[in-house]
């Protein structure tokens, strides 16, 4: 099972510079855990201590923002593509 995950520049320190990594899982949360197993530390940049996606990290499964599809409970499957983009924001 392979799901391609596109990694933004700022998180590539965790992936040895790789722009994409591959993982598996039935949900986005499981996928994040799997990726974190291969690239320790990346989950902490995406998920809060309360187990929710960080407010200012955008995650898309097949181009849909997961805020609208159940966040970390979003179902994922082989062949899906996941993109992570930190919010561009400030004050």
């Amino acid at each position, binding site marked *: 099972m392979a799901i391609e995950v596109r990694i933004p*520049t700022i998180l590539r320190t965790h992936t040895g510079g790789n722009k994409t990594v591959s993982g598996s899982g039935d949900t986005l949360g499981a996928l994040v855990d799997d990726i974190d197993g291969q690239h320790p530390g990346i989950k902490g940049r995406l998920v809060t201590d309360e187990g929710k996606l960080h407010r200012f990290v*955008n995650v*898309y499964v097949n181009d849909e*923002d997961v805020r609208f599809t159940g966040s970390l409970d979003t179902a994922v499957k082989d062949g899906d593509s996941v993109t992570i*983009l*930190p919010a*561009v*924001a*400030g*004050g």
Partner: protein
Amino acid sequence: MLRIDRGTYDAIVAHARRDHPDEACGVVAGPEDSDRPERFVPMLNAARSPTFYEFDSGDLLRLYREMDDRDEVPVVVYHSHTATEAYPSRTDVSYASEPFAHYVLVSTREHGAQTGLVDDEVEFRSFRIVDGQVTEEDVELVASESQP
């Protein structure tokens, strides 16, 4: 050092003035590894706020896809401050997510929505923000290649 052409500089300032009193935001994309800001891309501030900006998440995805297709990166990420100085706020620093970008701040606190750029200085400053550290840099205006 940020090298930017006059046309792009004017476009950023005009955008900041047009959106005042809300913060304006956008990027200037350029070829990866070139450090040349070439393609001005104003973005909608989904927060529509005088004190906060955020790219809409759908717009953000489209922007990054487009830059990917064109082998570009965001060389400049700009936004305006409408009542404070053109210096990164703590919020700006905590959310800065592009370690190689030049973060441009424009302040419209003095000039607001005035149009006309002749003899009309605005605060336009550029910074690198890496690992929570802010370093100001010089801004050098260069002649556009398309202009004499």
